[in-house]
């Protein structure tokens, strides 16, 4: 008899929808159907069925081909690499559980690693901004229950967080928002007329790279100051009009994405958006939320923070202290400046998502990648250790984009013999301890 697993959390994006219903075969081996997920989430669960899944660690040979090796061999190679390297980049963590991260951090503390997560190329800018000016924010349920002014700035949830608008931000009816979409005014600020812009009541097309100036104009307008005629392609009349509309709302929120974090000025774009949000609290209630990408990148930041006090780019290379400086201990800078001697990647694919210069540097160093699948990183690594998919084949804690922790569930068994991240990391830690005692 097929079984239905309910309350399943989707391990794709930071929206972390936790209402999926998944039907699995009675032997716990196959996913038969996925209910409530978006196209991407469904693909993730269905992908487990794909043939050709790697089930054994692989080591790259001098001729560029890969040879199957045992977990013991792979773990020994990894531990020796970590013990030898004087400074190791340990990057990834966004697609694994908080429990696994914790073990990874213990390894890093032993071997002098620099633990960095996907925020480094995603919402790292936002974290820097929050460190500079704080952040007035709320959980997503508050938006559902109260928000009547919703701004999407430099983000496109229709594509990147497909169920965000229906679960939290545009369509749901909440306690004080019984009219749902009709009771809300939706704004979209972007340099493209996106699918998100199509559902907005007001679209403000800003010239690419002029968000900081436009937000500066919003702030100036909120204080009743004078403005030049046009800011980043937006007429000043529009700015005054929108700011007045926002002031008349009861509860406003800005959702922002990589349209702000990736463009000129990076953290400053977020910084000024937060400052605008803060200003608006003099007139009404206003919050701002980062549209975090990976499903558990937030969790990595949380665990690193309670253990070391920094949300990413945590430099433990001195063994006796934790340090942090974005621009120095961040992955792309470490790689392009050749500041590390080995690379350890887990639960992410920098090969696909880092600028190529960083990966060229990485490919010249001893590298181990832990990932369920073949990807752009595994193929330029010395060793690839395949593992069970977290959130599908094993469970663990994850944090949503608003920092709410939600448990991911094991839905099906992993392929025979495949270890989990937690198991692989624990074995690496034990091997590292052994090697260090021997030394």
């Amino acid at each position, binding site marked *: 008899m097929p079984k239905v697993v309910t309350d399943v959390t989707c391990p794709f994006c930071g929206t972390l929808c936790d209402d999926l219903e998944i039907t699995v075969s009675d032997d716990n081996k196959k996913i038969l159907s996925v209910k409530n997920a978006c196209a991407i989430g469904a693909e993730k669960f269905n992908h487990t069925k794909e043939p050709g899944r790697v089930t054994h660690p692989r080591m790259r040979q001098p001729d560029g081909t890969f040879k199957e090796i045992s977990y013991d061999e792979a773990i020994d190679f990894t531990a020796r690499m970590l013990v030898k390297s004087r400074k190791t980049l340990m990057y990834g963590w966004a697609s694994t559980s908080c429990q696994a991260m914790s073990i990874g951090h213990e390894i890093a503390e032993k071997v002098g690693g620099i633990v960095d997560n996907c925020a480094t190329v995603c919402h790292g800018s936002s974290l820097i901004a929050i460190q500079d000016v704080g952040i007035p924010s709320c959980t997503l349920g508050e938006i559902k229950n109260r928000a009547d002014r919703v701004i999407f700035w430099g983000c496109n949830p229709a594509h990147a967080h497909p169920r965000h608008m229906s679960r939290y931000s545009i369509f749901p009816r909440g306690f004080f928002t019984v009219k749902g979409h009709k009771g809300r005014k939706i704004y979209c600020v972007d340099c493209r007329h996106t699918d998100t812009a199509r559902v907005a009541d007001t679209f403000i097309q800003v010239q690419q790279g002029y968000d900081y100036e436009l937000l500066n104009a919003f702030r100036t307008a909120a204080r009743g100051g004078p403005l030049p005629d046009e800011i980043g392609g937006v007429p000043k009349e529009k700015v005054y009009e929108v700011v007045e509309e926002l002031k008349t709302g009861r509860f406003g929120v800005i959702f922002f994405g990589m349209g702000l974090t990736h463009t000129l000025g990076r953290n400053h774009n977020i910084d000024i958006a937060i400052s605008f949000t803060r200003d608006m609290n003099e007139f009404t209630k206003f919050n701002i939320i980062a549209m975090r990408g990976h499903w558990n990148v937030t969790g990595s930041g949380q665990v690193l923070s309670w253990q070391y006090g920094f949300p990413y780019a945590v430099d433990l290379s001195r063994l006796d202290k934790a340090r942090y400086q974005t621009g*120095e201990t961040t992955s792309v800078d470490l790689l392009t400046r050749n500041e590390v001697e080995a690379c350890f990647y887990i639960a992410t694919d920098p090969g696909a998502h880092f600028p190529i210069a960083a990966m060229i540097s990485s490919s010249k160093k001893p590298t181990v990648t832990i990932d369920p699948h073949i990807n752009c990183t595994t193929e330029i690594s010395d060793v690839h250790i395949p593992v069970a998919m977290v959130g599908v084949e094993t469970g663990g804690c994850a944090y949503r984009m608003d920092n709410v922790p939600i448990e991911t569930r094991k839905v099906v068994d992993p392929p025979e013999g495949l270890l989990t991240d937690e198991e692989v990391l624990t074995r690496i830690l034990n091997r590292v301890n052994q090697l260090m005692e021997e030394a």
Partner: protein
Amino acid sequence: MNTVTLTVKQQPEIILEADCITPDSFAGKTAAEIEKLPVYQGKQNCTLGDYFKVAGKAGSTPAETQIIVNGDCSRVKYIGMKMSAGEVVVNSSTDMYTGGWMKGGKLVVNGNVHSFCGLGMEGGEFIINGNAGNFLGASYRGDWRGMQGGLIRVKGNVGSDIGTFMNGGEMIIEGNADIHIATHAEGGRIVIKGNVNRRIGGQMVKGEVIVFGTVNVMMPGFHYNQDVELTVDGVTAMFQEYNGDLGERHPKRKGEPVYGKLYLKK
């Protein structure tokens, strides 16, 4: 004043952390003692003597100690960090945090410096005879206390984010600057003799930025006030004075708001 001369004898394989290269840690030490000061390459503990030949003898106090560094230091971080007195002259380019949290004395780099130099500087004089990277005289992440005092002078160009959260002191850039100048500043003065790309004085509360060259894009929150004559670094000229950032909070003095000031040479 006594002089200690350091000469690079071996390049670090990765990068060298040498926060001991200051008059404060050298003071009262012989060359042999200075050679034993700790430096680091990742988790490897090394000594200064592993990488530098040390000659001469330090003065009995930091103020009486001069350090001259020869050889390529472009992979050496933290030179002159937290120095309180004395003098350091580096005849090379240097890496990050040169002159970080400097309190006094004089630091001269006859080359370029990388990012985060003069971070949180409180006093002293920091002369860079080449270019400087990003976050020059800025605050450490999260800190609202950037450059507090002292002087930074750069002969060449600078990167972005100079003087972020600047509260005091003066910075003179003889070349050009990129983006984000004096963001969140609440005091101090930045003079840029060359051109600036964009975003001068964003979220500025108080303080001054004076630009001799061109500005690619002005911040909408800066509003023209008047023309004024100023004498800046020995040059007298007419400037357009702007008040800003009008989007930011401003303290009041005698009932009148105090603005950040941007001066553009006419």
